[in-house]
């Protein structure tokens, strides 16, 4: 069976709604299916990746550490829209540093996050076979 291009589009902030958490659950399960997986963080979706989340006082589970485990599941194409960050006064430094180890390059550690312009992201979306939206 041929491999399909799966894209998970994340546009919602974490904790205010459950979509970020449950989207991550699909991504983890989906990683076992050996498809060509990408994640896009657009609009408020970029807030899912901020450093230093501490949910103790709101009584919800802090699921942000899970993003750093994605590399271990071979989920390493994480597109972050540049314009979305800028509109929100954020830079890459405000986000977690997500990495993966490249088996084909002597396990070199590489960045998972690809900062892309809106136009570049439009091209990436256009190539997908299956787009899951949350």
């Amino acid at each position, binding site marked *: 069976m041929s491999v399909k291009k799966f894209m998970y589009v994340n546009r919602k902030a974490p904790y205010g*709604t459950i979509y970020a958490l449950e989207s991550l659950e699909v991504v983890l399960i989906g990683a076992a299916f050996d498809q060509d997986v990408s994640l896009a963080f657009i609009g408020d979706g970029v807030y899912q990746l901020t450093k230093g989340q501490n949910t103790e006082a*709101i*009584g*919800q*589970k802090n699921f942000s550490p899970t993003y750093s485990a994605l590399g271990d599941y071979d989920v390493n194409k994480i597109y972050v829209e540049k314009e979305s960050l800028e509109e929100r006064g954020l830079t890459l430094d405000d986000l977690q540093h997500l990495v993966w180890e490249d088996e084909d390059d002597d396990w070199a550690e590489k960045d998972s996050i690809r900062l892309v312009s809106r136009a570049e992201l439009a091209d990436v979306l256009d190539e997908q076979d299956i787009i899951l939206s949350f």
Partner: protein
Amino acid sequence: MKISIQVNEGPYQHEASDTAYQFTKAALAAGHEIFRVFFYHDGVNNATRLAVPPQDDRNISAQWSELAKENNLDMVVCIAAAQRRGIMDPDEAKRQGLDADNIAEGFRISGLGQLIEAGIESDRLVVFGD
């Protein structure tokens, strides 16, 4: 002060019920009277006893049930909204000819008049929703 709370969204999908719960707890701790917590729209889904969230997550329905028990809270679920969405107490289930009910401890099903009454009787009404 006498405060009432309205919850318009169900558990987990939106933070509304969490915030309403934390607010209610804080109001009680500060010595205020909670006249009523009214669950409307998808808020009625907070009243299920069949939820089994993961062990490392909170059980929102159970939190409300406990808070009600400890503080003798009046937690009212709108009957019309509950019927649309399948939240049933034993009496309603029987009346509707259903073979099961799912309401959790501490919640009671009643009419929208209870929300209006809460507005009339309370000094403040605070609405949580989406």
